[in-house]
């Protein structure tokens, strides 16, 4: 509270803008409560019961279930950075990180987090407080390794990194098994690391329980996401991108399960078991590839929506919902965790990415695709042009390449982008006509 009060006193305008930014989101009161619970948990973790005594910082998608079973409450700087950008307050921290020597090409999730922490901003505005230990993995990008290692070094705290091999195009199942062998060894090593830093023996039962909860959260999220295959879809991207947070952050598994269960119940009640496509409110069904533009909810709920185009699927959100069931043995479960994190939709190689998109075009009855050429995320940008060519060759589907950034609004220009969106919508109009024939 003191940190927040200090932040408001120093930055009244940013605070005002932030509140305005949050209020502009399509959030229900329950969603807002869920978000605040997550953020507040990381603020007061030290006052919570013994099992949450420790606070760990993790990069997105990291198998946080393992440290969590040793009492580490997970904090994800990317989630805080995303919320800061959502509130429209990411530019000052990004500029601060620039002044610290981070070049203009560096990931703006990282720069938002580093800048906000340096400025002493609270978690609601991107800052991350000192953790008891730091964890990162490079299956999304190498930035994750260096970012978190640096934070651990600054605070003089223990750090553990998971090194993921890259599954490149053309590699078969036997190759993936080799990679899983390597990852499994590292996961055992992490368990030893956790035992060393906590002075406690690893609790397998607790771990399996947490993995099972994780699996349940992901299952519920996927079931809910499946409703978006309907026409009309029940949820659009502007909503799901916030809705995914309890699943991504594993903030409080039991509450997350309760939350998703109640949402699923509502969906079941409203739509029944019917998944068939019916005429509805969205004229064009669009897939968004890449990270959302956190600062620009209006793009989804106004610019695109006004033209009848709605984002009904995005691999990014589902990428974190792939946790499998715990296996009979500890070894089997660790291998399952390794597999679930090694191959995710956001980082598929080109062969798998094309195959995945081909399936999604059919499953979600898509009329167009927007590919985010993200200045901040080169791993995701690489291969997009071949993906576009392949999909257009097979389906003739319109693809809009959107060259901008996920956190930095300065990379987005309304005028030229709106003109391109108009052209994209015209192409979708033609495409839908052809599809009908």
């Amino acid at each position, binding site marked *: 509270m003191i940190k927040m009060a200090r932040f408001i006193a120093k930055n009244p305008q940013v605070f005002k803008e932030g509140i305005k930014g949050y209020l502009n989101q399509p959030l229900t009161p329950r969603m807002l409560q869920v978000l605040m619970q997550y953020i507040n948990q990381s603020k007061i973790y030290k006052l919570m019961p013994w099992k949450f005594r420790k606070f760990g910082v993790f990069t997105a998608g990291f198998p946080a279930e393992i440290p969590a079973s040793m009492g580490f409450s997970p904090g994800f700087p990317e989630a805080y950075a995303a919320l800061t950008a959502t509130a429209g307050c990411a530019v000052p921290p990004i500029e601060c990180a620039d002044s610290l020597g981070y070049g203009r090409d560096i990931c703006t999730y990282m720069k938002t987090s580093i800048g906000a922490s340096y400025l002493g901003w609270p978690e609601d505005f991107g800052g991350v407080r000192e953790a008891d230990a730091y964890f990162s993995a490079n299956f999304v990008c190498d930035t994750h390794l260096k970012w978190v290692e640096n934070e651990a070094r600054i605070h003089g705290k223990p750090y553990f990194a998971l090194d993921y091999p890259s599954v490149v195009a053309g590699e078969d199942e036997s190759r993936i098994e080799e990679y899983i062998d390597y990852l499994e060894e590292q996961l055992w090593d992490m368990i030893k690391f956790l035992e060393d830093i906590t002075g406690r023996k690893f609790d397998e039962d607790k771990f399996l329980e947490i993995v099972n909860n994780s699996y349940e959260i992901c299952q519920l999220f996927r079931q809910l996401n499946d409703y978006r295959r309907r026409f009309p879809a029940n949820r659009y991207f502007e909503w799901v991108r916030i809705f995914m947070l309890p699943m991504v952050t594993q903030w409080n598994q039991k509450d997350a399960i309760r939350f998703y269960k109640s949402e699923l119940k509502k969906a079941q009640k409203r739509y029944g078991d019917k998944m068939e496509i019916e005429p509805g409110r969205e004229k064009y069904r669009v897939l968004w590839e890449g990270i959302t533009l956190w600062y620009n909810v209006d793009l989804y709920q106004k610019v695109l929506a006004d033209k009848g185009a709605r984002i009904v699927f995005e691999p990014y959100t589902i990428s974190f919902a792939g946790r499998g069931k715990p296996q009979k043995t500890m070894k089997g479960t660790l291998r399952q965790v390794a597999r679930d994190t090694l191959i995710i939709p956001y980082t598929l190689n080109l062969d798998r990415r094309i195959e995945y998109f081909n399936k999604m075009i059919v499953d979600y009855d898509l009329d167009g695709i927007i590919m985010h050429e993200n200045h901040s995320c*080169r791993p995701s940008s690489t291969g997009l042009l071949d993906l576009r060519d392949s999909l257009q060759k097979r389906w003739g589907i319109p693809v809009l390449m959107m060259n901008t950034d996920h956190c930095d609004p300065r990379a987005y220009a309304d005028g030229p982008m709106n003109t391109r969106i108009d052209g994209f919508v015209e192409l979708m109009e033609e495409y839908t006509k052809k599809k009908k024939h």
Partner: protein
Amino acid sequence: MKKKFAYYDTGHEFPEEIVMAAGFTPYKILGDVHVSTDPADRYVQNYICPFSRSCLTEGMAHSQEWAGIAFCHGCDTTNNQYDIWKYHVKTDFLYWINTPAKNDKISRKFHSHELRRFKEHLEKKYDVEITDDKLKEAIKKSNKIKSLMRQLAALRSVKDITNEEYFLAARKCVQMDKDELINDLEKTFQEWKGRPAFPKNMVPVLVTGSDITYPEAMQIFESAGLRVVRDDLSLGERYFAQTIPEGGDPIEALTIYNSRIPQPPTKIPFHVRLDYLRQCLKETKVAGIVLQRLMFCEPNGLDFPFLSRELKKDGYKLIVIEREYTPTIDQQFVSRLESFRELITQ
């Protein structure tokens, strides 16, 4: 003449000795700054590393001259471009070696596995037997080259050796037939030994950061009156600072060697790279440090704030500078380096 086997490696991870033992000349793909990257820009966006686009352009134009191509896990950019090469570069053999980002017992075991797997695939593909004896012979040859390069590099701070000359010698190491290379380096050594002393009008500096892959980038330092007498670049000391162990299992020897080389920015932890730079600075007196970064190079962009802060704390004078991928001697770049020169010589 032996056929070339090309490799794409943003650090110095590629096991050249395995390819040498298979009967090929290892050839590091370095692109060509004088050739437009238009062919690659069709598949890779222009905000992605221009060096990588130049390499793809070279691959698309010259792959038929090479027996095969292997990639090493490097930075995010090059890792993901493997797939693009698979789609657009014509070759009978495109191979991926997952070199680990960490340097501990588990990752070294994995790396060793990766090297053995690569060896097996080469044997199968080219119907050759890569025996331990052949590997040991290749290792000896490599060590001879590294030793010669260390002697040549040591002359930089005492003799009049231009930045470009040093760069060209380092580039030969990764592209030339190894037997010819040894003769060439021996001759160069004799010639450099007879050179005049280090010129008084030049200022010795250490250069770190993105790999310098074309001579014009080195000429810029020369134009500003700076002589690169130490570095940790892949076309530089990273290539020859360490010797490969000559006893025991040769694949294990290559794994150990790789774990000891000056660390590229794609690896963790940070301090290993810093330790090497500190060691260089202890060994050789320099007036300043240049941290240069090729535009869009994320790994160096992530290392620089930490490196520059620590080196400044040590009391060194340094400049952090971003350069473009162009053969033009950029006068703005030269001016900044000249100002730096003024600063460090006051």
